[in-house]
């Protein structure tokens, strides 16, 4: 740094940089470990080491997937599932965030409404599917509602936690700069809770796909869940695997999308 210091020798430089180099190597190698598992599966299936009726080779599954992509059959199911998840997710997340912020800011509301949510939260969402079907019918509305319920609680509790964990000093600042109740809500509580809100959004995305898969098994004529179930019933195992891979991939992409949004909207949480 300073002009009087000597330059590092070649050997010192090498030692200085070697941990970072090793780190890079590991990171690259870690990409290949899932592929290794896939390769193992392919070989065992080809060699009949595992039952091909239950575990068709990945190459065979890929072939089935390709034909379904070409025939556009897959996209109808993906579309139906995405629509249900998207609408249900929004129906649950928006009130979850708003109520989480409100209860986080108001001790009175927390005392009055907190016990209600605490009592309802542990009810397994799939357990109330028949009730939801009874009320909302077998159409898409029952799927929206079921997902919304699951998403709501995750968003509610994560947002509430975010507001409660925010340093009290932020609220003092809000009061001192003359913020109204709504301004405190919008400009202090919401951004303070945003990192937790995003944790909730990711958890909720994962659980949305669990809920929709189960709901489509039982009460739908379309969607990836229905497709998996129908494939099982007709013993089309390759198609079933395509369905499983597709719905997993949908969940994965959704979470990637939320993470990209998070990097954009919560840049201060990086550190």
């Amino acid at each position, binding site marked *: 740094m300073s002009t009087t210091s000597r330059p590092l020798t070649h050997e010192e430089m090498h030692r200085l940089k070697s941990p970072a180099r090793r780190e890079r190597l590991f990171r690259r190698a870690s990409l290949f470990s899932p592929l290794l598992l896939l390769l193992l599966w392919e070989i065992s299936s080809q060699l009949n080491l595992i039952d091909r009726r239950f575990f068709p080779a990945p190459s065979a599954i890929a072939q089935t997937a390709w034909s379904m992509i070409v025939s556009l059959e897959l996209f109808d199911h993906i579309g139906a599932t995405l629509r249900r998840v998207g609408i249900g997710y929004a129906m649950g997340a928006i009130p979850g965030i708003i109520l989480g912020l409100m209860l986080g800011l108001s001790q009175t509301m927390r005392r009055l409404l907190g016990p209600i949510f605490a009592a309802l939260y542990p009810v397994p969402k799939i357990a109330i599917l028949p009730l939801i079907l009874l009320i909302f019918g077998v159409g898409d509305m029952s799927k929206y509602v079921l997902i919304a319920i699951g998403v709501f609680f995750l968003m509610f509790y994560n947002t509430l936690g975010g507001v409660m964990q925010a340093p009290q000093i932020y609220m*003092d600042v809000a*009061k001192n*700069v003359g913020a109204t109740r709504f301004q405190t809500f919008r400009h202090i509580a919401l951004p303070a809770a945003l990192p937790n809100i995003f944790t909730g959004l990711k958890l909720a995305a994962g659980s949305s796909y669990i809920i929709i898969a189960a709901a489509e098994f039982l009460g739908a004529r379309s969607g990836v869940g229905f497709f998996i179930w129908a494939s099982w019933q007709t013993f089309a195992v390759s198609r079933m695997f395509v369905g499983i891979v597709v719905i997993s991939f949908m969940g994965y992409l959704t979470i990637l999308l939320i993470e990209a949004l998070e990097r954009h909207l919560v840049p201060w949480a990086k550190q």
Partner: protein
Amino acid sequence: MTAALQETPKPKVVCAPPAIEVTTLTKAFYNSDADSVTLAVSDFSFSVARGEFVCIVGPSGCGKTTVLRILADLESKLSGEVKLHTDDAPAMVFQEASVLPWLTVAQNVALPLKLKGTPHAQQKARVEEMLALTGLTSFANARPSQLSGGMRQRVSVARALADDRDILLMDEPFGALDEQTRLVLQQELLRIWEATRKTVVFITHSVDEALTLADRVLVMSPRPGTLVADLKVPFERPRDVVEMRRDKRFWDLTYEVWSLLASPGGT
């Protein structure tokens, strides 16, 4: 001779009503679990003239922060009277990092103006002025996480000054900073105060800091805090925080305040 002195008082002192008048302020905390009452501040009275810089020193836990929070209406008093003769609520510079991490430096400074609905162009001009005053111009778009503790407190000061309120309350704003940074910021604060002439109430546990900054030092007793002494600090302004340490009066006053703090003051 004494009569002549009394006949020609400084008109400012006589005419200007005090900006802050606190009479027999008392604050207690009740812990319902232990059914115990903690008396934090007891019959504390003082007043601050318009444009005066007053420091309150006292041992930790003496309730000096509580007094300031009551002035800022962040806490309620138990009894006594607090009168603020100003049009607007006091602005506060907090103890710890109170800079909002999701806003940039400029956005933090603009916050009070934005919430008031000040026109955008006016906001921008005012923020630029405040950033220049606090030496933050080149950090306008930085995030608080990229700043040092001293820089963050500058942001806090700039934000408190942004909407130009009459009274500035400062709660150990430099308490967490290292000594050198603190000295630099004290000098900066003096310069800013010369330029703005706000009424300032500054809380500190540092005798040195109080004497460096204040026109008047109020010494508080240990809990329950009450007024032990009200000392005038005679140094002329503008002050040089390093040079004033060559003044013998500085050390005499330091000794005086320390002996007050060390003696068992209020009961």
